[in-house]
């Protein structure tokens, strides 16, 4: 009898520990921030920094959880299907607008209550500095004369940096030999080792090579020049209409209560616009680009439409 009593006592204790939650205002318990990428990368750093800053504002722990897989679809699907109570939010990268077109998961920006955009990372068209191509025009002229000869390394078929190379092809009428690598860093290593001729990845990935004089960035594919390499012109300046950028923001499941939504939007905004976060962007080579939920939704939907025309055209739909 005594043994049974001990077991019961422990069970009651355990259950009450879990069930413990009084009726308070939001937020009353820990918030989970689902991150679609592995620890250590740009998405992870942005998410964890913003989580830390939100924590100060909201007064409850905001804990980052990494759930990788299928270009972020695993994490984004998880957030989409979570309860819209404000206790599960997620980081949403550019793939939010891409995975439907790629056929990974049925996800669109409309499935979420977007909370705010944080950053923008343009694609940088990079070659070796001992290569004959001094400007983007040189490169395009060469590619036109030698179709499919130029070996373009990217970070994986269907990844944003592959799409960037495709967009370059599309707008300038050239043909490249796309060689996918397992992420951006191996592609840059292959460029340095002379195994590929050109890569289209983020400026921060090639920055050390640029600084040491081994690599040359011919153009960035953003709407504006990158703060990291301000001397390099955008493709638009060179007369090419290719605008491919990676971006990242925060989102919650659709249908948050009004009060919760406002609180989250406010804390995300404050975190992203803080000096700490701006500092991080500068150091990690990302362009700080806050947008409020309204603008962000418009932007993400435009991107969604753009990729849903471009990707099927490129024959990448699975």
């Amino acid at each position, binding site marked *: 009898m005594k043994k049974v009593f001990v077991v019961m006592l422990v069970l009651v204790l355990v259950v009450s520990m879990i069930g413990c939650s009084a009726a308070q205002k939001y937020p009353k318990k820990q918030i989970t921030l689902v991150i679609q990428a592995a620890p250590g*990368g740009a998405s992870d750093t942005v998410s964890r920094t913003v989580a830390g800053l939100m924590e100060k504002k909201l007064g409850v722990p905001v804990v980052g959880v990494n759930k990788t897989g299928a270009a972020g679809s695993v994490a984004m699907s998880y957030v989409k299907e979570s309860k819209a109570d404000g206790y599960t939010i997620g980081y949403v990268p550019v793939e939010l607008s891409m995975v439907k077109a790629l056929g990974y998961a049925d996800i669109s920006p409309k499935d979420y209550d977007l909370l705010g955009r944080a950053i923008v990372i343009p694609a940088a068209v990079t070659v070796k500095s001992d290569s004959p191509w001094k400007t983007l025009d040189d490169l395009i002229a060469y590619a036109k004369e030698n179709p499919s000869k130029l070996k373009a390394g990217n970070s994986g078929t269907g990844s944003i940096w592959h799409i960037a190379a495709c967009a370059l092809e599309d707008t300038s009428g050239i043909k490249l030999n796309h*060689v996918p690598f397992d992420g951006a860093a191996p592609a840059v290593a292959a460029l340095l080792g002379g195994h590929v001729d050109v890569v289209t990845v983020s400026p921060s990935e090639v920055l050390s090579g640029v600084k040491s004089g081994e690599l040359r960035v011919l153009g960035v594919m953003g709407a504006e020049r990158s703060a990291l390499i301000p001397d390099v012109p955008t493709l638009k300046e060179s007369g090419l209409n290719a605008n491919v950028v990676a971006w990242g923001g925060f989102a919650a499941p659709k249908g948050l209560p009004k009060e919760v939504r406002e609180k989250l939007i406010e804390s995300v905004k404050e975190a992203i616009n803080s000096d700490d976060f701006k500092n991080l962007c500068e150091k*990690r080579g990302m362009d700080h680009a806050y947008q409020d939920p309204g603008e962000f939704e418009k932007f993400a939907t435009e991107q969604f439409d753009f990729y849903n025309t471009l990707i099927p055209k490129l024959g990448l739909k699975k």
Partner: protein
Amino acid sequence: MEWLDILSNVLHPSVSVYLVIGVLVGVGIGTLPGLTATMAVAILTPLTFWLQPEQGFAMLIGVYNSAIFAGGISAILINTPGTPASIATSFDGFAMTRKGEVGLALGINTIYSVIGGLFSSFVLIIAAFPLARFALKFGPAEYFALAIFGLSMMISVSEKSILKGLLIGTLGLLISTIGLDPMLSSPRYTFGNIHLMEGISFIPVMIGLFGVGEVLHQIFENDQKVRSIMADNTIGRIFPTLGEVKRLLPSTALSSVISVVTGAIPGAGGDIASIICWDQAKRMSKKPEEFGEGSIEGLANTCLANNGVIGGAMTTMLTLGIPGDAVTAVLIGSLMMYGMQPGPRLFVEHADFVKRFMLLMVLANIVILFVGLLGAKLSVKILKVKKEIIWMLVLLLCVIGSYALNSSFVDVVVMSVAGILGFFFRKMEFPLGPFILGMLLGRLGESNLRRALALSQGSYSIFITKPITIILLIAAILSIVIPLIKEFNKKKTVQIH
């Protein structure tokens, strides 16, 4: 600043205390299966931002080195590699524990991990640039040849039956094809499930096969009269004898070089290096039959290899700004957070910091030496606990560890299936080594074969026109053919008698 000043700077308590903290945290994380060195560094990185760069890096360097070292402890004590880099450590480590030589196994793990770490740190100090240049020569064709070279070891890790080894190894290769294909990203065998797109993750499989599989095996073979895993409660000596050290010298010297180079090659890390070194040690050994049955040569070489990789990986990271492995990818992020862009300019602009970084590598290994040797006695206490308690802890930690990796329930399921398979593989004399090898190298081999052919536009000549590729492929062919010839000769002699 000169080296001496820098040494006194990093020895200052305000820096060295973080190094010691890092080492201790690393030991904790490294021993827990499922918590990897990458995770340890990633989790600690945000905590280091309020520190000075040398303090922060003292901690991160300490964690990285000691987590890899500590992965061997759980491989030796409970046959569950704490990190993937310690897979090969479990081949011989646990067998030594069962033989009652657990003290020696832990001693060798400590001493040779430190030797590997120190050697690679010195390479980092002396030859960072030439080594990194060499590593860049590795393009898709070379990676493919490296994978083939690795796969050619399937035969020598096949234990009793080459047929079973090859069969299970090819199954490992087949499983590695599940997920989005590495070139075109078209889904293979995912059946529309997004959780399978990334493929079957390696670490849950490893934890299941080694951890749960081993426990189930022990439950089945349980002798009620024996209380703990070890036959008796003494740990034996910790230090190897001078004769043993001499015997280990040639193979470990070669392993040091192999592991540093492997570390410097982006994308090839401690898991691959330690298997390669285990295999080459076996080939050089006078007693190859002891390998897998508790050979100190096998153990020492794997322990040396996984720590020897670190200096190599750091070399590529510091000189080129390209990660040599997953951990250094995270470290690049931390360097950038401190406003330092890794690359050749770092050696000019932050010369002092680079020197501190190198000395911290050396010091971390010295701290590990003390922690490891002092801890050897302590960690053996684990084995004196009743075996049922160890079983329960392993069964729980395997579930949690596989979940913690990616917060993925699918990984937990994969782990438990692998665990049950691990039991049957053990009972049916299917060696685990080839399976692990297949899963580990399948993607590397396949993606680089196709990538190389994409570069050469379909011409296979890319594999026979590059010196590194040719050397690796010849080595692969030799390591397949020689054991077969030996086997054949053995059979012949048996028939004659």
